[in-house]
């Protein structure tokens, strides 16, 4: 029986994280990263954290979800409400609200996932998209039940206390969680279900259990990312969580290369920065072209690299190695996911 050595590569990841963190602190104190770019950096980390959630659901376990932004939004609203009503800037309540955001998104994912995860590929995508639209409509009308959410005008007044260190820590935790889970027995079961559900079932893997776990975990990550979002951006608005935003997460995961976590991280951060760099480069008079360039980039990238930018590639430190010795290091797997 081979065992997975989870600590291999871990020091490297942590070292890199530390280097990144210190570099950010230095550049920040030198004002090279100003307020605006810090905002974008935080946003990119928040979005990538949620995208790692979708990477678990779709990239690892092969479950096509088009409703990821709904769970991101559920986390944002839950945590935002808790902080707004009872927190008043209290850091303990803030941390508690992060947990609550993740828990609520995960719980809703469990309830909706149990019935709909029986559906396959496109049908699952359509059902999750429908669910996302339902959630968005409910957010639009939520002020009828809870006034503080503001309904269609959006929720303001959430204390803005999520700073870079906590955002980065959550991001790092998400990366490590996904990395370690992938080669745990659950991770192997995900791969099995993704490649062939019937065969996995025949080998004694319980597909429902495995798929539900991936869905709940992935959505909980979206929830915690949403919770951070609510504490970093002054307005929590239903339109930030509609099905077009779900497409953003899907685009990040697919363009990164399905099943490649390095790919998800690179495209997640890159995608957010691309949009902002375009804003800076194009200037006011050409701002209208931003959407066009964004869309063209998307089509061109997917035509030139249909499997994603980093498909089949993985930064070695993100793959816990198998022992005993003598085994070649695990190669990045080439996922064979049909949508």
């Amino acid at each position, binding site marked *: 029986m081979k065992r997975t050595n989870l600590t291999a590569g871990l020091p490297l990841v942590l070292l890199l994280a530390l280097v990144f963190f210190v570099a950010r602190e230095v550049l920040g104190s030198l004002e090279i990263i100003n307020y605006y770019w810090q905002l974008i950096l935080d946003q990119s980390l928040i979005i990538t954290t949620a995208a790692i959630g979708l990477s678990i659901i779709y990239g690892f376990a092969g479950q096509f979800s088009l409703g990821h932004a709904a769970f991101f939004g559920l986390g944002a609203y839950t945590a935002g409400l808790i902080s707004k009503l009872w927190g008043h800037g209290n850091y303990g309540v803030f941390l508690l609200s992060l947990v609550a955001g993740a828990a609520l998104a995960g719980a809703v994912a469990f309830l909706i996932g149990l019935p*709909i995860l029986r559906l396959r590929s496109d049908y699952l995508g*359509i*059902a999750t998209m429908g669910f996302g639209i339902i959630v968005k409509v409910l957010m639009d009308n939520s002020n009828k039940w809870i006034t503080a959410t503001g309904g269609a005008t959006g929720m303001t007044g959430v204390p803005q206390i999520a700073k870079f260190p906590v955002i980065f820590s959550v991001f790092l935790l998400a990366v490590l969680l996904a990395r370690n889970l992938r080669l745990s027995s659950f991770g192997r079961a995900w791969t099995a279900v993704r490649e062939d559900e019937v065969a996995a079932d025949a080998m004694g893997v319980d597909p429902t259990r495995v798929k539900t776990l991936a869905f709940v975990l992935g959505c909980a990550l979206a929830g915690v990312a949403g919770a951070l979002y609510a504490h970093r951006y002054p307005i929590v608005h239903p339109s930030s969580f509609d099905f077009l935003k779900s497409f953003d997460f*899907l685009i990040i995961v697919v363009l990164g290369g399905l099943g490649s976590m390095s790919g998800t991280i690179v495209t997640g951060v890159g995608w957010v920065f691309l949009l902002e760099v375009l804003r800076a480069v194009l200037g006011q008079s050409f701002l209208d072209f931003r*959407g066009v360039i964004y869309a063209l980039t*998307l089509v061109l990238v*997917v035509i030139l690299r*249909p499997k994603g930018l980093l498909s089949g590639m993985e930064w070695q430190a993100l793959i816990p190695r198998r022992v005993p010795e003598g085994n070649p290091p695990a190669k990045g797997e080439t996922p064979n996911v049909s949508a």
Partner: protein
Amino acid sequence: MIEAINQVLNGLQLGLVYALIALGYTMVYGIIRLINFAHGDVFMVGAFIAFISTVNWHLPFYIAVPLSMLICAALGVIIERLAYRPLRYAARIAALISAIGVSLLIEYGGSLKFVFGPNYRVVPQPFSVVQWDLSGISVSNIQVIVLVTVVILLAGLQYLVARTKTGKAMRAVSFDHDAARLMGINVDAIISYTFALGSALAAAGGVLYSVAYPQINPFMGIMPGLKAFTAAVLGGIGSIPGAMLGALIMGQVDVLSAAYISSQLRDAIAFTILILVLLVKPSGLLGKTGPEKV
């Protein structure tokens, strides 16, 4: 009661427009298994071309409609050729992402000032609206025109698909690409033909929609597109009668839930029904349950 009948008639009008869009979704899905997210935007372009050709070029309405259908048919073929054909043998998710990209491209491209512009435009009525009062039940000439146009187009489509040689080839390709190719069918040409047909129908739908609900903007295709797509899934995606049935149901759900339950919650109601139907019968109301490919 009479109020309810009037609402059902409104629902019928909306459902007929949805049917025109849903057919394009279902034919394309049937033939290349792609959710063509750009289809709702072709619908938008159709509405805009009719608007521009009547308002700016002063063409009569009965020329503007076929012109718009023709241009959109060409647009559909171009989209398929440039954005989907290169990905035909890649994983299906790649074509889906490409479709999302094309959809955004048409929306943002259309919002550019020298294309359609970002603002809402009010569509002038191509003919004066006449309301007939049949003992309380009110019927407008727009409803009649929508009904007649849709019935003619659907009859035409039914003829093309069921009675012509090309239609037979379409059905063959949707059944099995490779076997169809072995029978001497030009698969690429048939796929282009399918996109042309679907896009032309969507354009007609766009024009009718803009006559019935006279306000257009470059993002107007998103919700009707989604609803029509939902209708196609509801009826059984890949099935032409299914798409029509699903669209008629979706039109009623939309109008009746807005009238009697809550206009804010109507989208939520429509998609709740979709999820429930999927759970009970994933292949849709009239869809065939094919063996799952493993």
